[in-house]
């Protein structure tokens, strides 16, 4: 949490005349608030006596909170679900929810509403659930109250939501609970029976124990083995085999054998083994499912942004709300302040500034005027504009990107994970061993068919891969959570294995390897001090670079930030402005590199030019990555000299300049065709396709949202070091997975001869199975300890 400040700390650091908005914490010049919306939200919160919120919340300076808006922008009534009792339910996504205090604030406000049945925020999924009886129009009032606090609400289509719910995960946990119940109870009964075998327990008591075990275990086994049997049947119907085939065969055979033994009044039954086996296997499955969960959520959020309503301007001047898909190219779409533009198109009327971070990754507001191209998913921060639609629904850039992500996910699904590769060899081996045991006992030794079958079943039980099922997911979960605490998010369960196999890293240059820096000879000292004083009020990357380039400059009070344009300060002599060429009232074509202009009364306009500079730790990271045997190359859209210079100073021999998104993808394809495994690190929207095309990919958390969604790894902070960290962690994880698989196969080699010889009784099977699972779990946590050091 180093990047976050509590309100108390912020208050200590700020001078008494705060330059940060009291509501959202953004720079606000000399004012208490940065905008009227924040002032209103602050008043509302204080007026309700909920000022405690400001003391409890945790602000993250890196996230710009949404600005409070107002007005009915959504046709909420359409999203309300009314059940038979007349209870209306509405589910809204809450944007701007940052911490527990936000949950408290929203719920406290809603708690004052009389006879509201539910007003509860789910912090994990960032959704607000409202339920009330009666008038559906009340939705607008309730939503307006929450929006008045400074949050932005987006309604969810409930049918869409139900489809996306994690049914599989829940079914797995239910099966796990049932298997656990059966394992615990049957084991109690079995312990009694095992002790009874040495203490002269009567056959009647033993049979009773076996019957009770059967009554508990059989229904539970039927239920808990369903996930495995379904998956095994699906694999067999496609003519393949997977780990679930021996599991299903083993569990079924053992249960049927034990039932027959119970009816015959035999000595041993294996109900406990079958239950415990399923219990351990399901733990592995649940962990596995959890490790894969994150990617699903991200794609869902993107889809949600797509599912909004738009206002279409009719010929007679009135507006009509309709779904995005219903808009025809050429229609005029009205987009109000704080609304996301629903279509791709060009601005027809109005001037505003837009937040295009979702689409382009540019975190600063962009000015838009008639003729500007805009894309679906862009947020309108300023006045209302009219957009002439050119692409709608499934043809927008956003929809294209969602399709791209889905295609990439599907392609990655074909990656054969380590555990499945082992399973392919393991399954036939186990079944052949069991069959050979049966034949040897029945034909060669001439034993009764029943005894031979029991021995063969024992072979299947002890080889059933419960340690193998835990081997990979435990390591995945342990390493993923360890990396998460270091600010590195792994979004895909198989990313670790794909990272460990990487042989080549391809870096994008601009924004990934480099950052902007002030050209030293660009100004005289006095002007620089003034400019830096202004720049100290802003978090714009160029302002930060200017401040860093000027040494320490005192922050000037009273500066007003004009988002997307620049900064201004009123002095006795007139207005000082720092910002873009246009903002400063200058004409002329833009320079090659990024620049800031300073205009002062009575002085000539001054230009601060910036150039891209390598990140401080880029060279060290590149060296360390090469040291672990991985090739490094650069693919950049920049001109050749700039790329060559960067490559030479980093000691990278292979670089490609003037790359388009398509040629980057071609480059990656050609590398893969040479048998290399490509790890792509990039941040811009133009990197999206090659991030998806690479075997595995990473983006900094400052990248375009779309790049982050495509990338397998998202890392925080300005440093490149996470690239190295994640590669090392992946290799250690792969080593731990291999050790685990080795351990579980080694254990099988040890006990299979015992089982073939007919010495494995139920209690030996139980001990062997549990101890091998614990061994594998212990080894996974050992990998965590290593990562820490």
């Amino acid at each position, binding site marked *: 949490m180093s990047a976050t400040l509590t309100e108390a700390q912020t208050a200590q650091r700020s001078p008494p005349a705060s330059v940060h908005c009291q509501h959202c914490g953004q720079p606000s010049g000399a004012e208490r608030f940065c905008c009227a919306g924040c002032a209103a939200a602050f008043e509302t919160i204080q007026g309700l006596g909920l000022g405690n919120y400001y003391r409890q919340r945790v602000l993250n300076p890196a996230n710009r909170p949404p600005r409070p808006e107002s007005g009915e922008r959504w046709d909420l009534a359409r999203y309300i679900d009314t059940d038979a009792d007349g209870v209306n339910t509405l589910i809204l996504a809450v944007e701007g929810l940052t*911490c*527990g205090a936000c949950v408290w604030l929203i719920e406290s406000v809603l708690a004052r509403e009389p006879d509201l049945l539910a007003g509860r925020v789910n912090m*994990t*999924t960032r959704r607000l659930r409202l339920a009330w009886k009666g008038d559906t129009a009340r939705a607008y009032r309730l939503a307006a109250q929450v929006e008045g606090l400074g949050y932005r609400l987006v309604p969810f289509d409930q049918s869409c939501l139900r489809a996306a719910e994690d049914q599989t995960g*829940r079914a797995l*946990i239910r099966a796990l609970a049932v298997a656990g*119940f059966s394992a615990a109870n049957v084991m109690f009964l079995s312990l009694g029976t095992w002790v009874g075998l040495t203490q002269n327990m009567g056959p009647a008591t033993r049979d009773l124990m076996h019957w009770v075990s059967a009554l508990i275990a059989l229904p539970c086994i039927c239920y808990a083995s369903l996930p495995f049997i379904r998956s095994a049947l699906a694999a067999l119907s496609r003519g393949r085999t997977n780990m679930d085939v021996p599991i299903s065969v083993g569990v079924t055979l053992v249960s049927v054998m034990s039932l027959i033994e119970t009816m015959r009044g035999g000595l041993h039954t294996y109900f406990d083994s079958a239950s415990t086996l399923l219990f351990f296997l399901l733990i592995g499955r649940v962990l596995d499912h959890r490790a894969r969960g994150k990617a699903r959520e991200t794609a869902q959020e993107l889809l949600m942004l797509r599912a909004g309503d738009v206002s279409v301007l009719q010929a007679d001047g009135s507006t009509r709300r309709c779904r995005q898909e219903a808009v025809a190219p050429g229609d005029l779409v009205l987009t109000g302040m704080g609304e996301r533009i629903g279509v791709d198109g060009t601005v027809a009327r109005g001037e505003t500034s837009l937040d295009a971070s979702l689409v382009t990754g540019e975190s600063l507001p962009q000015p838009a005027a008639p003729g500007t191209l805009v894309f679906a998913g862009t947020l309108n921060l300023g006045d209302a504009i009219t957009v002439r639609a050119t692409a709608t629904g499934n043809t927008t850039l956003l929809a294209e990107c969602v399709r791209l992500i889905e295609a990439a996910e599907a392609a990655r699904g074909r990656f054969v994970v380590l555990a499945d590769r082992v399973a392919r060899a393991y399954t036939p081996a186990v079944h052949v061993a069991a069959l050979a045991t049966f034949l040897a006992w029945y034909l060669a030794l001439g034993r009764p068919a029943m005894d031979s079958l029991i021995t063969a079943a024992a072979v299947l039980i002890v080889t059933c891969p419960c340690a193998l099922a835990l081997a990979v997911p435990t390591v995945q979960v342990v390493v993923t959570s360890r990396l998460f605490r270091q600010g590195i998010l792994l979004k895909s369960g198989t990313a670790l294995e794909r990272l460990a196999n990487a042989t080549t890293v391809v870096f994008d240059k601009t924004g990934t390897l480099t950052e902007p820096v002030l050209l030293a000879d660009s100004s005289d000292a006095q002007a620089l001090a003034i400019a830096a004083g202004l720049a100290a009020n802003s978090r714009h990357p160029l302002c930060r670079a200017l401040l860093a380039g000027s040494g320490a400059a005192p922050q000037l009070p009273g500066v007003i930030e004009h988002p997307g344009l620049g900064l201004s300060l009123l002095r006795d002599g007139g207005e000082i402005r720092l910002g873009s060429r246009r903002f400063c009232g200058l004409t002329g074509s833009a320079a090659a590199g990024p620049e800031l202009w300073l205009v002062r009364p009575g002085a000539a306009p001054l230009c601060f030019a910036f150039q891209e500079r390598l990140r401080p730790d880029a060279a060290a990271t590149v060296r360390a990555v090469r040291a672990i045997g991985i090739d490094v190359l650069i693919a950049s859209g920049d001109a050749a000299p700039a790329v060559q210079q960067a490559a030479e100073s980093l000691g990278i021999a292979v670089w490609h300049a003037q790359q388009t998104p398509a040629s980057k993808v071609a480059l990656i394809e050609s590398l893969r065709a040479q048998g290399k495994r490509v790890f792509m690190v990039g941040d811009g929207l133009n990197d999206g396709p090659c991030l998806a095309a690479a075997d595995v990919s990473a983006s900094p958390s400052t990248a375009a949202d779309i790049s982050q969604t495509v990338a397998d790894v998202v890392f925080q902070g300005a440093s490149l070091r996470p690239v190295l960290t994640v590669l090392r962690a992946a290799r250690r994880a792969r080593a731990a997975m291999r050790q685990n698989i080795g351990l579980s196969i080694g254990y099988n080699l040890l006990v299979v001869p015992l089982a073939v010889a007919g010495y494995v009784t139920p209690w030996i099977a139980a001990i062997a199975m549990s101890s091998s699972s614990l061994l594998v779990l212990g080894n996974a946590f050992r990998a965590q300890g290593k990562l820490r050091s």
Partner: protein
Amino acid sequence: MNVLVWLILLSVFLGGGALALFLWTLRSGQYDDLDGAANRILFDDSAAKRDEV
């Protein structure tokens, strides 16, 4: 012998009760918002309390 029957019935009943309780907590969505639950414990007034539907 009689005591055995009672004990077995009792243990199965207790285990089944725990299972039913767990399935109920799962169904009523108590594991849907683990982040929220971790933060809710820090809210120190009862303004947000309400019977949920």
